[in-house]
């Protein structure tokens, strides 16, 4: 009938618009264009879940629309059984169907949650690169303990290398660290360290962002992420070493002052054990 036709047309239009938009903006749909091993595995999980959901949803949807069409009052040809009740067998089927789907999803979720645990170190022939991250109002400080350099709102690392981020916050409420192209997000809290592992599959430039509201400068708390070749990375580290700006006590105190849309900064050396000092600060009186 007319309403059904209009409804189908509407959903078709919606689908076509979505398709067109995807063609034009596809590249920017970061979750569906994974550039890292972790984000790729998460996408596999997402697609698996989606497929399961559609498997049970689509038939239900069709059943609903068909029932509504067939048993409308004006359609006098269809049977009308007002006293019809459904027995135990019917109910068993209705309970069993979603249970099966959920059971499959649950098993898969358990496995995936362990496999994609952000705390889990990634196995790789390459050596792990450790980067310590401090969320400060409203910028990100990246400390490279192995290279003794640091930068603000910018992070670079070599491709095909397991990266271990160690995250905390200072003078900032709950934060969330997220590079959608490369992996899922994780919260960073004052006085605590949360690890996150990822591995970029190729060369590229990505955006990282804050995903938990933390005050006025929240929307502008983005950072640039570059995965480069091994050589480019080494060159970059050397360039930073030549900037001759120290991240000492004073420089860090300056950084702690709240600032919005903070420009990128680079430090050629870092005060000893800065990260640990920051973490311990909140846990005992000075």
């Amino acid at each position, binding site marked *: 009938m007319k309403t059904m036709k209009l409804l189908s047309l509407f959903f078709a239009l*919606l689908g076509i618009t979505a398709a067109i938009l995807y063609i034009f*903006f596809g590249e920017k*749909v*970061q*979750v569906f264009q994974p550039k890292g091993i972790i*984000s790729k*595995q998460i996408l596999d*999980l*997402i697609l698996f*879940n989606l497929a399961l*959901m559609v498997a*049970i*949803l689509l038939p*239900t*949807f069709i059943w*609903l629309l068909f*029932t509504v069409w067939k*048993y409308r*009052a004006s359609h006098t040809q269809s049977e*009308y*059984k*007002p006293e*019809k*009740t*459904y027995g135990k067998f*019917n*109910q068993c089927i*209705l*309970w069993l*169907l*979603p249970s099966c789907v959920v059971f499959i*999803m*649950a098993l898969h*979720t358990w496995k*995936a949650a*362990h496999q*994609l*645990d952000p*705390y889990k170190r990634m196995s790789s022939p390459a050596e792990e690169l450790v980067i310590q991250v401090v969320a400060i109002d409203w910028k990100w400080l990246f400390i490279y303990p192995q290279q003794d350099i640091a930068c603000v709102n910018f992070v670079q690392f070599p491709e095909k290398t397991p990266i271990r981020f160690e995250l905390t916050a200072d*003078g900032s*409420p*709950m934060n*969330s660290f997220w590079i959608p192209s490369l*992996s*899922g*997000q*994780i*919260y960073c*809290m*004052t*006085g605590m360290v949360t690890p996150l592992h990822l591995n970029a599959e190729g060369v590229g430039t990505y*955006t990282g962002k*804050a995903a938990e*509201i933390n*005050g*006025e400068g929240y*929307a502008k708390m*983005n950072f640039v992420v570059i995965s480069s070749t091994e050589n480019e990375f080494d060159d970059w580290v050397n360039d930073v070493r030549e900037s001759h700006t120290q991240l000492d006590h004073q420089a860090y105190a300056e950084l702690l002052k709240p600032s919005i849309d903070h420009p990128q900064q680079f430090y050629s050396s870092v005060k000893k054990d800065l990260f640990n000092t920051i973490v311990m*600060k*909140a846990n005992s009186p000075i």
Partner: protein
Amino acid sequence: MKKFIFGKLTLDALPHQWFTIGGTVFMFLMVLTAVIILTKYKRWSWLWHDWLTSTDPKKIGTMYVIFATFMFFRGMIDVALIWLQQALAADGEGFLEAGHFQEIFTSHGDIMVFFVTMGYFFGFMNWIIPLQIGARDLSYPFLNSLGFWLTVAGGLLINAFFIIGGHFANTGWLAIAPLSSLEFNPGVGVDYLIWSLQLSGLGSLLAGINFIATIIKKRAPGMTLMRMPLFVWTSLCGMVLIISAFPVLTAVTFMLWLDRFFEMHFFTVSHGGNQMMYFNLIWMWGHPEVYILVLPAFGMYSEIISTFSQKQISNYTSMVWASIIITGLSYLVWLHHFFTMGAGPEVNSFFGIVTMIIAIPSGVLVFNWIQTMLKGKIVFATPMCWSIGFIIIFLLGGMTGVFMASPPADFQVHNSLFLIAHFHAQIIGIALFGVFAGLTYWFPKIMGFTLDEKSGKVAFWLWFVGFYVAFTPLFILGFMGATRRLDTYRAETGWQPFFIIALFGFLIISAGIITQVYQIIVSIRDRKLNRDTTGDPWNGRTLEWATTSPPPAYNFAKIPTVEGIDAFWLIKNKQRLREYEDIELPKNTGMGVYISIFAFLAGFGIVWHIHWLIVLGIIGSVACLIRFSFDEHRDYILPAAKVALLEEAQ
């Protein structure tokens, strides 16, 4: 001395920004209009004696609905500002500052959840539950009135910042600590949020106790638990959730307030405070809360679908158990709101899997609704349209929820617009559509005349289409890495076209709302033509349709005896009773109003650290309560002769 009288209040707190001046002027004009109309038509006495002091749940229900409607429009202003800002805000071209924008979505969330959705549902429950169980009133009529007025006091407090203060909380609707702690938020905004929630939370708690006692103790003879209408069942489940979850909200917001008022350290970043504990406690309340919002709606849909398919609901027992299981499971899933906090794969998986398990009874509900329609004779009245639209959106929203229940998948969509789209699909699709379905379904019963069907259907289609146009882009935006609560973003992200499409969807929804307003106006205009003379305009199946429209104050001249599910359907054609007896009814009382005024003053005093006002407010409310407890003549008798007169007149 000044500090003693005024606390933290200074001249700065008076309105001096465009929106606080605008809000103050607007509220002032509304009050002025009301005062003028009441004075002109000499209705002050009527207002006080017939409405404000009433203990009749039908009247209290109507007041809840009117209050919720005001708050709905208040919340929609927030929505308009949010959508407009985000459509324009590429590369900082928005018109709102970051801090202000953050206050807007915070108040939007709190108003819509606490005052609109809960307000409407308490309204419907007051209207309909006594009627459906064959009772005359709730168990505690005074508490009913008090609960309503405390909710109003909370609603006033949440809007008070327009006039005094200038700033609301900017933390998001749940005031997550430590952002909401004194260190990061020294202003009064968060305090306004805390105390408006505490006041309305107390109102909700009292309502919860009231409805449970009523449903357990005041059912008509013959109405066993398994013969109750499904709306009563799911409301009971919702009320059980209220009495068990709201105390946790009381405790956690109280602790947050202690941190702020007395400089304690529950959730601060140093001195041993535990931010993660705030998340756990607030969501321990928060998750049951969302089921409080949707469970009564599920019951409503069951009745509406059954009535308009002209067939009994498919497997009543299964529906009851599905609702009970959902209620029970809702206590076990709270951690899915913060999978990204790093609890580890075992803990995350447990909560994720239990979340998925909730999908099973939810699926059973949907299947039974469809089965009810199967081999029925479906009439597409407006309430039925809303119900079918609900099922479609519920399927979509539920799917996205189960999808996020997988912790690693959630790592990529947590706090993104995908999450926003999911929960709005649920709240709008289930709860808000439920409000509209309930309003169109029960309006004739309470008001005595039916609503205009044509504009009702147009409104539905505008809402349904508008919802999809508005929220589908948000799902895609989530996958594009768009986080929630952003006041600005860079144009190169490619997000702006999607925000613009979403804005267009909002405009369609607004057209739907305007159509609904038009529907009310036209229906009131045509009320004499559309008078419901039978009391049963939809050929209903439950007891509320056994009374006149509107029902008399005492509901039933004689409490009916119930013989099965769909009680009214079974006694529809039986003879009308001629023997009448004396009926005892509760008197009106202004105590609910007075206590709530004192509660409001105490809340205001707490926000501004005006100690004498806090003391005055507390002493005032307690004194009123004590005074009221010595009032031993709370009821009056309606003599049988009078009942006879009222009944014969119909």
